[in-house]
């Protein structure tokens, strides 16, 4: 099966939020009452029932006002921190098509994934005691369709295709608009990529991690302490056994005659 990438060309986004609505519809996510908070961004944050959100930032740079609209959702990491942290087999799986899919049936609501994610994507559904996030519409991909958000996007900001195609397209487009490709960390691959306008930096976008990487604490936890828990127990048990057969147990000296 092919590996896919969703490309988000921020320079083409008009903030229409068609993707946000399409996501809700395809995934049957319940509506919420929202409030106008003085920004186009509504609701204010991702939520268990809002898996993709258009974030809105006003940034003044070199005397010019920039309106930044950014489609924010799960990045579908190549080595997902969320799945690495998850204690429940099957709750978070990385698929060949690139998607990282959450299966609520196996989720135990421990929230380890929420803490681990370098992009702060998973959200907690308090009522169900389960995590919730974008699935890249893996069910649609398997059916030969594009994710719902991509299908809905009217401007061509969101595109979807095989990894090779999209990487090529991203480079071409970045060159044309003098933009930058995000994430740029070659050690942290994702199946969602951005083209950001060259006139602003990554830091100008809210809720965007300028240096996405696997958290070091997660590395220590899973790559060191995890194996050493069993190595330690088994090693010490082995040493105890050797002590028993070589040196022998520490017997009590019987001083008095007729002792037990």
């Amino acid at each position: 099966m092919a590996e896919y990438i969703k490309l988000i060309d921020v320079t083409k986004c008009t903030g229409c939020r068609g993707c946000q609505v399409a996501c809700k519809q395809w995934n049957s996510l319940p509506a919420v009452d929202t409030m106008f908070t003085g920004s186009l961004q509504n609701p204010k944050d991702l939520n268990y029932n809002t898996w993709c959100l258009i974030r809105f930032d006003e940034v003044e740079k070199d005397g010019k006002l920039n309106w930044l609209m950014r489609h924010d959702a799960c990045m579908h990491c190549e080595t997902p921190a969320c799945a690495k942290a998850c204690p429940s087999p099957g709750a978070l799986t990385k698929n060949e098509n690139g998607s990282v899919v959450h299966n609520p049936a196996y989720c135990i609501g421990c929230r380890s994934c929420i803490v681990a994610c370098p992009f702060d994507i998973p959200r907690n559904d308090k009522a169900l005691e389960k995590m919730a996030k974008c699935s890249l519409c893996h069910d649609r991909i398997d059916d030969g369709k594009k994710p719902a958000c991509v299908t809905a996007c009217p401007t061509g900001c969101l595109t979807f295709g095989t990894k090779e195609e999209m990487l090529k397209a991203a480079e071409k487009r970045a060159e044309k608009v003098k933009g930058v490709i995000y994430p740029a960390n070659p050690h942290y691959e994702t199946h969602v990529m951005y083209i950001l306008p060259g006139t602003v930096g990554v830091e100008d976008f809210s809720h965007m991690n300028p240096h996405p990487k696997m958290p070091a604490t997660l590395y220590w936890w899973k790559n060191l302490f995890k194996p050493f828990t069993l190595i330690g127990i088994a090693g010490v048990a082995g040493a105890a056994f050797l002590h028993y057969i070589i040196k022998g147990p520490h017997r009590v000296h019987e001083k008095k005659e007729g002792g037990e």
Partner: protein
Amino acid sequence: MSAHGDMIKVTDGIERVVHWILAGSCLFCLITGIGFMYHSWSFIATFLGGPYAMKWMHIFSGLAFAVSFVYSFFMWKKDCQFESQDLQWVLKGGGYLWNVKDLPPVYKYNAGQKAFFWILVACAIVIIASGVVMLNPLYYPVVMARFAYMLHAGAVVLLGAFIVVHIYLGTAGNPGTVSAMLTGYVSRPWCETHCPRWLADRDSWKPGGEKDVA
């Protein structure tokens, strides 16, 4: 002679009960924790009714561990205060590694037992504090929550290994010892070997020697 013959009481009932609540909850947490850590060992969760059930078992067992730990700390901290002779005992390997004739006489607990106690204290504090953070990780700054997950696992590496040492030395490694935590009584020769100074003290307190002095 009492019903226990020439056996000497070294632990009282409350010590034994607290010891076993601490030990039982600790082992249960260790086993369920291993079940969470290694996906390939998910049979542990299956056996206990699935990972969701195991999550709550781990939490409640952790609560029992925390409560019995706090009680044990205050119960044993005095007995586990290091003294100057302990260094001598350690330098001689406690008589466990090579043959030693003149081990410094031990009072109630030897330096190894005391060290185990303080390692348990350090690890338990880290494990309990990080466990509290992991109960509601979203209430805390993300960096703090991430450290909690890491430290929870890190402290277990140390504690898990030392628990195995403790079990071995309390059972097969020192015949006659385990009854101290079962019936509470051990033989007089056992005391002469393992806690001679305490035994001398005890004999001077209660010349009959069969009363409750533990």
